[in-house]
């Protein structure tokens, strides 16, 4: 058995989205079985199946050095805090 990842795309401008995975003995069986496992109720108008072995992975260890870089996150919280501080200073009361 091989494991396949299933991607579905609805009609229209939506992109392909990951729907799940399945096991099948070969590509053609995977096509047949994915249809019944993931598209029974017309969940997608198009389907991609990708053998998991064909996926090039960026695993957690490879990505984790990028987790701890708050300076790359501009969510506005620093500016908001500074504004709040200034406001309370000029208006003379504490928030």
């Amino acid at each position, binding site marked *: *058995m091989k494991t396949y990842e299933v991607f579905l795309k609805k009609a229209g401008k939506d992109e392909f989205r990951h729907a799940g995975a*399945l*096991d*099948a*003995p*070969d590509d*053609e*069986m995977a096509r*047949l*079985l*994915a*249809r*019944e*496992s993931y598209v*029974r109720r017309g969940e997608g108008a198009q389907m991609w199946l990708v053998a998991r072995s064909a996926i090039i992975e960026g695993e957690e260890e490879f990505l984790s050095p990028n987790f701890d870089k708050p300076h790359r996150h501009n969510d506005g919280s620093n500016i908001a805090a500074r504004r709040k501080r200034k406001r309370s200073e000029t208006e003379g009361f504490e928030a």
Partner: protein
Amino acid sequence: MSELSAAALSYLIAFADDEHMIGARHTSWIGMGPFLEEDLAFCSIAQDELGHAIALYELVVDSFGSSSELVTPIDHFALLRPAADYRSCSLAEAACDDWQDALVRHWLYDRAEELRWAALADSSNPALAAIALRSEREEVFHRAHAESFMSRIASSGNASSIALITDSIQRLLPLGDGLWDPPDAEADAIAEGFVTESSASMASKWKQDIAQDIQKWNLPVGLEIQIYLNEAAPSASSFGDRLQRSEGFDQFLTSLQAVISLDPEAEW
């Protein structure tokens, strides 16, 4: 709501009962398929067959019109008739408790369904023709599914698996004759254009299809099966197959009635 002739009704009931029984038998594999994905696929096929049965039963009960006092006549018609009133064939009723039997029966039955829907696609009854077109779209997948398993097992090189399905074919194929036991007054149904091909004509095409598959998969079936497949006409033993219920039918019907009989008048 159209009135159907007695011949048309008898034709519909035979096909609907086949679809109902095969669907119900297939669903007994829920949770027992060889792997999850196949479990889902086979049960989906079962539900398709039950869907076909519902579509055909609807034509039948619609034709009965408003004279019926039953709240849900379709469920009552499908489930609460006396066993003797069913017109399903032995192949559809058979338990097929082994997976290889369920697979072989699925292939034999769906090969026949292809011909049966084609014979209704140009029916003089437009509602039936529409059901036939929709059903055949689903059957393309059913046949691909059966073919996928049969061809892979046949070419697996696993002698014991090949022996299992070959043995199944030898036991189940003769039952298949009953598929072609014509419903009452089939000639009238053909005359009015309700169906466009006779059971006898479909039977010989079916045998050719089955013989071609067996040859393609190179399955070592016995000589008697090869002889059987070469005979155009259905064997005499199939005559009246739809009039008698097969062994174990009563018990099976009772199991199908387990819920509805709790409260036959309930609205679900």
